[in-house]
């Protein structure tokens, strides 16, 4: 990192302490330089470390810091979170609170702003005030995380939470895809899931990768591929969506499999009903998949006139 970049960061830190401490910008630069260039520490960590040093010197808590930007993080929209381990600030509304599955987690749920929603986790040991569903907050110094292509933010000991008077509106992060259904992938049709609490893994040959051999619970799902000739979208249809799409309900699928002594007949039957047809689907994305909330078969008349005029003119 260049001297001038370091100086920019140093100036920001200097401003944060200008009311409390007599510090020299050159001193800040030197400390940052040691961490970043000698010890190869990322600049965000280096800033934290330097800020902590000055906090100790001043006998201050992090939330007493001036500058109002909680340490100079970038304020981001939740839809723009696209890398793990970044320190950021968000302004968001608590959309949902979920039941924490572990004692280490104090609160877990969904935060939303104009651009969409993102999962958040607040650790018990961080000792932070409780967030309330439906309220909007400015959260400073949260860390981004990623799991299987999905991003989340984690609140930590240094996070500051400020309730906002204004309400942050939560935008719709669902996407739409349209095209011909060109493939139905393996793992579609009548499947069995692990019955263990909180485990919904799909069984392979009667085995759950976590819980071993179990008595599975039947479910319907389709992993399909929509293709518009320019790009492909992988879509997951859950039980309800699968029934709507194929007209085959779970009970009927079980009977079909029972009669044939084979579960694969269900997916085969579904293929014949939906492959090669055009659909439009809408829903949130999960990793590389679009989870279909709404779907519609495209059967309406298509207008050839406009393209014909264009084709004749070139």
């Amino acid at each position, binding site marked *: 990192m260049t001297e001038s970049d370091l100086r920019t960061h140093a100036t920001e830190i200097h401003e944060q302490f200008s009311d409390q401490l007599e510090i020299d910008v050159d001193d800040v630069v030197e400390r940052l330089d040691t961490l970043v260039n000698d010890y190869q520490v990322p600049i965000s960590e280096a800033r934290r470390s330097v800020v902590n040093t000055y906090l100790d010197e001043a006998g201050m808590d992090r939330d007493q810091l001036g500058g109002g930007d909680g340490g100079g993080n970038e304020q981001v929209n939740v839809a723009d979170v696209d890398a793990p381990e970044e320190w950021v600030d968000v302004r968001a509304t608590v959309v949902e609170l979920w039941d924490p599955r572990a004692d280490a987690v104090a609160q877990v749920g969904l935060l939303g702003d104009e651009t969409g929603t993102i999962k958040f986790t607040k650790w018990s040991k961080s000792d932070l005030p409780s967030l309330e569903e439906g309220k909007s907050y400015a959260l400073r110094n949260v860390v981004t995380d990623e799991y299987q*292509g999905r991003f989340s933010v984690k609140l930590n000991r240094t996070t500051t939470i400020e309730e906002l008077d204004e309400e942050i509106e939560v935008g719709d992060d669902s996407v739409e895809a349209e095209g*011909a259904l*060109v*493939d139905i992938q393996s793992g579609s049709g009548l499947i069995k899931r692990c019955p263990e609490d909180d485990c919904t893994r799909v069984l392979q040959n009667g085995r759950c990768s976590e819980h071993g051999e179990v008595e599975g619970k039947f479910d319907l799902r389709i992993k399909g*591929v929509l*293709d*518009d*000739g*320019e*790009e*492909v979208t*992988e879509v997951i249809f859950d039980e309800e969506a699968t029934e709507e799409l194929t007209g085959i309900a779970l009970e009927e699928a079980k009977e079909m499999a029972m009669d044939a002594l084979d579960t694969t007949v269900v997916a085969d039957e579904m*293929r*014949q009903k939906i*492959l*090669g*047809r*055009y659909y439009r689907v809408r829903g949130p994305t999960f990793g*590389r998949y679009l989870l279909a909330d709404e779907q519609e078969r*495209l*059967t*309406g*008349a*298509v*207008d*050839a*006139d406009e*393209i*014909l005029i*264009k*084709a*004749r003119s*070139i």
Partner: protein
Amino acid sequence: MASTPTREVARRVFAREFNDASYTFKESDDDRAPVYVLLPTGQRANRVFLVGTLTETEDVGEDSEYWQGRVVDPNGDTFFMYAGQYQPDAASMLRELEPPAYVAVVGKPRTYETDEGEVNVSIRPESISEVDEATRDRWVVETAERTLDRVKRYKEADMEDPATDEYIAMADEEYEQLSIENYRQSVVGALESLQDEQAEASAD
């Protein structure tokens, strides 16, 4: 992040252009690297999606079943497809379907050279399903639109400019004998035939 190999897009192309796409190539030396045919309008295709009228099926195999299917587009041009023991689902569809029927086909382009030195282009189907007329009509309009976009891009390209799309430049070089005008005509022909059908249907 672990990268999963991306699935190849299924291109939309009328039979006339598809059957002219005799030049194949790979993007790398890897044995498993995908094989592409080069569409004469300047786009590579490793997969196609088509909907048309299945007019004939025939088992042309000698020792084991090897099904040939003929699928005709609105211009009357024919896609040829072949499915044998390694494409059991498609082969059984060709065995069971009664022509004429509208079918949707997803498949890989394949080329082979005849004894006379001509290159024939066909499809190795991944799936075949019977569909309705509305689906066929939608495919015709969609394929017209995609083809027209390609024709337009090709016509606007400056072949002297090194920044020109590599597949357009490749098509310009490999298909000197072919006229891009043919594919514009297939677009016009296909759409006119669709409009005629629709006019007849509403007159009935």
